[in-house]
């Protein structure tokens, strides 16, 4: 399999902490790949390694057959790989339209301003912010800011979109709406790699799931394969042996 994105044996340490250890997997064109794992598993670090925020200590990131390991984030965006952030990062004093225009100007195509604005407006409308184009980003609700984060990434016209917890903090209705938007993005031909803690949502959205735990890849497979994998269940529910020993000691 030659994926759109191939991560090969990535390592990243922060001092004594091995945040990501020997992680490899591929993302196939047009798929939605879900990245799950307990807090501190290394999911966001992996995103930062993929889009160049961090340089890995070892391993390679291949995007569309090109080695982008350690490439600066703005060049990664130019190559067609955009991302959102778990903690939304709007340019607060700027309007929704201008936020998205920034995304379009620094995205896959080197667009002149008026063309960038055109793309930006389309992206904002697409995520449901069409009625708030001139609103300063600071005045958006949490759900609105999450949508803006997505619209700005889409404005870059990416081939691959990395979504870092775009559903977190949304109410159940907003979650449903956002899920529909994500499905439509994929229908437009964009490949998606997403981190999410809302398990029902990610299990239903994803074609495949990769599970990280303490920096290592624990499992990979279809949502049902992963959810039935004893190693994954142990990572989430705890070691049953510990309880068995404890019960034994009590008896």
């Amino acid at each position: 399999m030659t994926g759109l994105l191939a991560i090969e044996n990535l390592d990243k340490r922060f001092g004594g902490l091995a945040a990501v250890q020997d992680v490899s997997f591929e993302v196939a064109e047009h798929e939605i790949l879900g990245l799950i794992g307990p807090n501190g598993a290394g999911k966001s670090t992996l995103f930062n390694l993929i889009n160049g925020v961090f340089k890995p200590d070892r391993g390679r990131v291949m995007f569309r057959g090109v080695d982008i390991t350690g490439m600066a984030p703005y060049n990664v965006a130019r190559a067609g790989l955009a991302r959102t952030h778990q903690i939304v990062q709007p340019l607060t004093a700027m309007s929704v339209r201008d936020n998205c225009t920034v995304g379009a100007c620094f995205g896959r195509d080197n667009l002149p301003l008026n063309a960038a604005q055109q793309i930006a407006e389309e992206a904002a409308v697409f995520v449901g912010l069409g009625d708030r184009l001139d609103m300063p980003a600071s005045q958006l609700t949490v759900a609105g800011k999450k949508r803006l984060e997505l619209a700005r990434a889409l404005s870059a016209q990416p081939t691959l979109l990395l979504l870092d917890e775009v559903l977190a903090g949304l109410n159940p209705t907003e979650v449903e709406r956002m899920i529909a938007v994500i499905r439509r993005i994929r229908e437009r031909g964009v490949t998606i790699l997403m981190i999410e803690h809302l398990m029902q949502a990610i299990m239903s959205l994803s074609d495949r799931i990769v599970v990280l735990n303490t920096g290592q890849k624990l499992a990979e497979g279809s949502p049902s394969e992963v959810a039935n994998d004893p190693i994954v269940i142990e990572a989430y529910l705890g070691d049953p042996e510990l309880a068995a020993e404890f019960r034994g000691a009590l008896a």
Partner: protein
Amino acid sequence: MSELLELQGVEAGYGDVQVLWGISLKARRGELTTIVGANGAGKTTALRAAVGSLPPRGGRVLFQGEDVTRLAPHDKVARGIVLVPEGRQLFAAMSVEENLEMGAYSARAQRKFDKCLNEVFELFPRLKDRRRQIAGTFSGGEQQMLAIARGLMSDPEILIIDELSLGLAPVVVHQLFNTLKTLKQSGISILLVEQNVHLAFALSDYAYVMAEGKLFTEGKPVELAKRPDIRQAYLGL
């Protein structure tokens, strides 16, 4: 009155982000009640809403049948609602003894200081031996013991423990659960958040499973342990 502490439809969150979407649960007198659930399920937020360090936006918190929703955390401590927070939150530069004194800050606790201190030293002889040692120099397991001991110095009606075993070695986890068992046998009421579901179920009288800010299910651990859908609360499938 068997319900000691009760949450009724509690809603809470941080800034614009709502975390709890109406949580109802009860901790009964003399029992060990456990809340389990995946990361981000809202367990800690539920405890913070209960003790008042995060005031609920909706719903009610009842203590011994009385509405205490709007009481400040220190007023709740004075009534015996005591939290052992996640990550211990000890006074790292202070000695064991000084940390224990901080636990006995309320007038209620000061009246019983000597009695509580004796009980705590009986439960944790190691703390007595090392009463002058600086808390920050302790191992993780010892710090957790000290955090529980500090909580007990508040003379709790209910001891609320957030993540007893997180990040600790199996042998230390065993010690702590044995301590918990001793505490339970002494009749103290406990509300526990614990990441190891199997361990929590082994000792609890009653358990609540949370997922995505709501209650997923509840029941006696022996019954819950047989149910395949507990996995759903963690893995969504």
